[in-house]
């Protein structure tokens, strides 16, 4: 019952968002994503940067509606971005991009709320001593991706560590780890895919 009500709330929240905020940005996002589809990495980077604050706001709103602390939003935002990345081939490039994006975001938010809901209920006593005293920061730094990074197979972890944390390029990573660039690309993609599956807990 609770889960169902939660779902409805989130649906409404995200739908409302599409209606009120997105009409102007939609065509810009769609253009960027089409360029990205055609192989334009800069357009893809710009698109991800452009959608992130909107995803963040929508996630905070969803958390607030579900009665969850909004400062947890960043982990969910990262999960959304990973899903957008790994599932972008399911976007039909003749359709507008925003509805697809929000369907993905809604899906990830519902998933995250279900997981968090359970975890909060189970662990509430563990945190009881810590929570009340500490001043709540605006946004808790995201920790889930980093913690799952540790459990990846060594190759994938090293490549992700190098590219994501140390900001190295694929070329630099290849020479540093004495791998071919192709192998770095494969490890990078597999690493991202396994991160996503670890985040969703399957």
């Amino acid at each position, binding site marked *: 019952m609770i889960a169902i009500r939660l779902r409805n709330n989130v649906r409404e929240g995200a739908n409302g968002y599409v209606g009120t905020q997105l009409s102007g940005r939609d065509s810009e996002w769609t253009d960027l994503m089409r360029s*990205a589809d055609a*192989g334009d*990495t800069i357009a*893809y*980077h710009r698109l*991800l*940067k452009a959608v*992130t604050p909107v995803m963040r706001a929508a996630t905070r709103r969803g958390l607030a509606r579900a009665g969850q602390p909004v400062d947890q939003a*960043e982990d969910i*935002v*990262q999960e959304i*971005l*990973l*899903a957008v*990345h*790994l*599932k972008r*081939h*399911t*976007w*039909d490039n003749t*359709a507008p991009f925003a*509805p*697809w994006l*929000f*369907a*993905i975001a*809604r*899906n990830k938010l519902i*998933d995250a709320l279900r997981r968090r809901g359970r975890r909060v209920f189970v662990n509430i006593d563990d945190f009881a001593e810590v929570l009340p005293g500490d001043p709540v920061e605006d946004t808790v*730094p*995201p920790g889930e*991706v*980093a913690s799952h*990074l540790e459990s990846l197979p060594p190759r994938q972890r090293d490549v*992700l560590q190098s*590219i*994501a*944390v140390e*900001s190295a*390029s*694929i070329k630099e990573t290849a020479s540093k780890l004495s791998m071919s660039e192709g192998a770095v*690309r494969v490890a*990078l*993609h597999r690493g*991202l895919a396994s991160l*996503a599956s670890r985040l*969703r807990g*399957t």
Partner: protein
Amino acid sequence: MDTEHLIRTLAADQDWRSRPAGAWLTVGLICAGALSSMIFMMTLRVRPDFMAATHNPFFDLKFAVTLSLAIPAIVVGLRLARPAAPLGWRGWLLVLPVVLLAGGVAVDLSMPQRLSWGARLVGSNSRVCLVAIPALSLPVLAAALVGLRHGAPTRPALAGAVAGLLSAGLAATLYASHCPDDSPLFVATWYTLATALVTAAGALAGARLLRF
């Protein structure tokens, strides 16, 4: 890892292109269909009077019904693997097998026949039907779920149920060529029951396996 870093990393992975779910589904269904056909030919086999039976419209109707379930279910399943893609008219395609079967039952009941309608409904092979269709559909269901996993079904249980429908439709197409019962009453009862079992299994599996 902060979000800025993650975005840069995703952009670095940009030239990786995933194949569409439709491609995975096609290859999977061909392989699984071949496997199920092999199992079928090793166990049940096509009925001996197959050629003669094709002159019986009720025999042919079985294939029309099963294929009109399987093909629309493939179309609907692929659509469900795309977020924010409205089903539109595609959902109505799934009514097709129901209409065909209902028409068949009406004709069957209106014609004078040697056996009573009760006997035609019970048939001679109902237990085999209830085992064979789910068993033959298992490889196909597995392949369909793998294929849909390459999409992004935002309603995983529903997508799983549709995967169940399509695999039951394909399995029933195989089984229909063995099944000695041609009465639409038999098909409406036992094929439907078998299909419902597979659909429920698909929904349960989908709810777990198709989340992304």
